[in-house]
């Protein structure tokens, strides 16, 4: 277990270092989430319900995640580097875990900017919304990293990733919006935690088959 976590840490450190050098994913995610919130601010009629506002927040989060996940395997795909990682004597799911951790970090950083911006454009978010966003991020990154690896191997990858990710992301949006607006947000947070656990397990177990022929 220690070896597995050490491998994942080495790979995640590499991904973070690559982003620090290239700076092409996180700035794009930040700019995108701020832009889309600004667009929603002007698109939504004044006097719209809190429910509609929060719905748009979740749309912005899912699409920002999609933008980041679309670039998750760019270096590996363009330079054939997945072969190098797959050949290493580490558990291949460590690649998934490392990418998932990196994507979670990027998404969380984008939301550190996006949630206060949402407060400025619309109204401040509650603690239950923040908890819902954190849990949703885990689910999106767990499932999204698996699908990003699958899409990276395909030709129409830009089309494939949203088609693969959006249907399984639907329960995350339902749970997230529920946690944001319902009185008993605990139920929805529990639902999101359960989703995370089940889908993370499925993605972890199937990643090996995605990166081998």
């Amino acid at each position, binding site marked *: 277990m220690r070896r597995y976590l*050490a*491998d994942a840490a*080495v*790979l995640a450190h*590499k991904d973070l*270092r*690559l982003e620090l*050098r*290239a700076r092409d994913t996180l700035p794009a995610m930040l700019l995108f989430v701020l832009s889309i919130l600004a667009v929603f601010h002007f698109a939504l009629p004044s006097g719209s319900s809190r429910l509609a506002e929060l719905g748009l927040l979740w749309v912005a989060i899912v699409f920002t995640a999609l933008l980041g996940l679309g670039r998750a395997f760019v*270096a590996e795909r363009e*330079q*054939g*580097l997945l*072969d*190098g*990682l*797959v*050949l*290493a*004597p*580490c558990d291949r799911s460590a690649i998934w875990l490392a990418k998932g951790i990196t994507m979670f970090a990027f998404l969380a950083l984008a939301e550190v900017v996006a949630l206060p911006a949402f407060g400025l454009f619309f109204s401040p978010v509650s603690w239950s919304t923040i908890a819902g966003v954190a849990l949703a991020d885990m689910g999106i990154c767990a499932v999204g990293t698996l699908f990003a690896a699958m899409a990276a191997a395909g030709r129409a990858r830009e089309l494939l990733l949203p088609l693969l990710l959006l249907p399984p992301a639907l329960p995350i949006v339902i749970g997230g919006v529920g946690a944001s607006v319902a009185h008993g947000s605990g139920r929805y947070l529990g639902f999101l935690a359960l989703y995370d656990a089940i889908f993370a397990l499925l993605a972890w177990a199937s990643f090996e088959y995605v990166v*081998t*022929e």
Partner: protein
Amino acid sequence: MIRAEALEKRYGLKRVLRGLDFELERGGFLVVTGPNGSGKTTLLRLCAGLALPTAGTLEVEPERGGIGFLGHEPLVYRELTALENLDLYGRLYRVPERRERIGMLLERFGLWEARRERASALSRGMLQRLALCRALLHRPELLLLDEPFAGLDAEGAALLDRELAGMRDRRTLLVATHDPERVAPLASGRLALA
């Protein structure tokens, strides 16, 4: 050790390898030759476990941790330096005395001065040298080299000649090349793909 029996590989309807039989004993040096599209790269990828046979059997020893693979791509991150790339692989392969081993390989392949250069700034020949360092880093028992002389200048090619000579009988080598005469004195056998 590699043993292939009736090995076949198809990509869709295209048959790349057909009924291939060969055996490479531990410590052997097999040169794989053939025209473009004859399946040399596919054979090496099958042996590395990067592709699966469509039919037939393929036994390879050791498992992936003991295999060094040099393909068409250098398999290094362009945004990382030569040192960082080797350190990444050294950690994943758990190379003992990693720093010393990396330093020794960089010196031997003439990359020490360029160790802090990003791979994107290296020339084609230097990238090939870095790729060779990566493939040799974990002291693999089995080396699979696909066109290892590609991009190397005369000095680099001579360096690789010496490396291959030094590995003879100590490591198992499968080398795919368009220039079989270059490695012919070292080779224990030749496999010609049609």
